[in-house]
């Protein structure tokens, strides 16, 4: 995405309060994820290293805004630190999926022919599984742990990117500037990397940024089902799952991490809609009119 495109998108987001809300939520989430260890009121609680029997099941108060859990840990601190793990998982999953998906889509799309068809058939095979089921199966096989969660989700994720890149590359590879590069005598590798890929990436980067919300949701799903990260990691899905057992006596230990997931995912979706609107020329015109 070029600087001008980014600036235009930002301009369009700024004029729409709903899009702006999405942007604020996502920014807050990222900042929280980066600074988490330094801003939690009870760092030891956050990491899950403590056990305070006298502070169990305290309802929300000024001291513990989100209350405490069955081990007497501050839920607020755990939710804040959870942002870091959610951020880590979403960046890890999307990043790894891009790393696998982009080269496959690029090579398959540009070279075409038998090799291209084979690569895309493999991609389709992965696409044929329901992604969450595939991720659950993989996570269960690999065992619990942060890295395994990332791997399991990325493997169910990359085919979407390679499809997207493949479609883009197919529309770009016949453009005159690619012909011009061939006529100059560049090698297919150079043409792919210098001329095709940079122009295929805009929709992929946008899609990837927006997929981070879904990655958080799915990672939480895995943790909730017990095939995700290991306790006592304060990952949001795990927090919901841990609090679930005591929901009758301490509803807060499950509710607040759940709300954190909800708000973050909504934030990413609002932002997604705004960016998609801004990228579509027809919708763009509608936005301009709304402003007039």
């Amino acid at each position, binding site marked *: 995405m070029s600087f001008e495109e980014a600036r*235009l998108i930002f*301009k369009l987001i700024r004029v729409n309060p709903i899009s702006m809300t999405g942007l604020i939520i996502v920014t807050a989430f990222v900042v929280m994820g980066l600074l988490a260890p330094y801003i939690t009121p009870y760092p030891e609680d956050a990491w899950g290293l403590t056990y305070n029997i006298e502070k169990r099941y305290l309802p929300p108060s000024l001291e513990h805004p989100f209350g405490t859990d069955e081990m007497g840990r501050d839920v607020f601190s755990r939710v804040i630190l959870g942002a870091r793990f959610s951020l880590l998982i979403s960046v890890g999953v999307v990043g790894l999926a891009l790393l696998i998906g982009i080269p496959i889509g690029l090579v398959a799309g540009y070279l075409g022919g038998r090799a291209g068809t084979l690569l895309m058939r493999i991609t389709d095979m992965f696409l044929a599984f329901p992604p969450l089921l595939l991720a659950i199966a993989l996570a269960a096989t690999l065992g619990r742990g942060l890295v395994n969660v990332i791997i399991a989700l990325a493997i169910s994720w990359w085919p979407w990117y390679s499809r997207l890149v493949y479609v883009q590359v197919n529309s770009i590879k016949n453009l005159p500037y690619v012909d011009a590069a061939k006529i100059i005598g560049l090698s297919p590798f150079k043409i792919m990397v210098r001329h095709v890929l940079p122009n295929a990436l805009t929709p992929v980067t946008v899609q990837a940024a927006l997929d981070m919300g879904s990655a958080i949701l799915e990672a939480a799903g895995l943790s909730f089902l017990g095939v995700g990260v290991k306790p006592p990691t304060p990952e949001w899905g795990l927090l919901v799952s841990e609090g679930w057992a005591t929901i009758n006596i301490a509803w807060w230990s499950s509710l607040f991490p759940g709300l954190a997931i909800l708000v973050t995912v909504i934030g990413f979706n609002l932002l997604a809609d705004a960016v998609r609107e801004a990228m579509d020329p027809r919708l*763009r*015109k*509608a936005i*301009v*009119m709304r402003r*007039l």
Partner: protein
Amino acid sequence: MTSGNVILNIKDLNVNYFTLEGVVKAVRGLSFTLRKGESLCIVGESGSGKSTVGLTIIRALPSNAVITSGEVVFNDVDLLSLSEEEMSNKIRGKEISMIFQDPAATFNPLFTIGQTLSDVVRHHLGIKEKDKVREHVQSMLRTVGLPDPERVARSYPHELSGGMLQRAAIAVALSTNPKVLIADEPTTMLDVTLQAQILDLLRKLKEEFNLSMIFITHNLGVAAEVCDKILVMYAGVPFEEGSCEEVLLRPIHPYTKKLLECVPRAHRRVGRLRYIPGMLPDPKNLPRGCPFAPRCERATEPCNERLPKMVEVRSGHRVACHILAPGGEH
């Protein structure tokens, strides 16, 4: 020409587009009249505002366009004052029809040519009997020179070639027996031999239906083929208007003169082409005075200060230029 009846009168039209990057003044101070049975050609390069004029007349401008002032008087009624309902029931597609560069724009790809045509016939002409509608559709397709009208009526738009589809679009436009036909670059997408066929057809139909025609094109040759009068526009401003022969053989405005000099010719040998230095102005950032002034070698003070106004220089020949047609004041 044939009679003195003015059928369409555009008075001081100004149209702006609002875009994210700023306001584009697409048409500035345009006035002209169209008589019954006359064909007027609006000639211009990109950004001249020629297509905006056509869309303004049938009130089909995109949503970010605003007509800031002016009148479009058709049969003593200002079309700009009509409601959208009156416009779509009585004027657009009935009294005033339009054909486009891409004939596919006339058709819904999900309907056959026959279905589209019969819808128009039923809606605008109020013919309800199945047989009569069918008959009218067939006769229209024959009129525009389509061989095998039965088969064409059963075809979907993508099944016809570009030339045949443009003929079908002309059939739709003329099926309601309109008074005015607006043709926006109708042959630009066609090969020369097909272009010649369509131009011939339009000329023939103009006589047959006693049509008034506004023909929008960038091609001076095409203009010379079909038109009685020519109006030259540049960056939204009208520069020169007169009979076809006057404008093409005795042009006055520096832009028209230069434009004629820089077209290579197929029918005669030309020496080295002269060209207009510089480039077309940025529509979002137009010069304050005459938009051609930065490229004009005769430009002086007033050219950079004020927009020139159309002045009648010879009978029926109007020019907007501070230098060669002085006296035009706002």
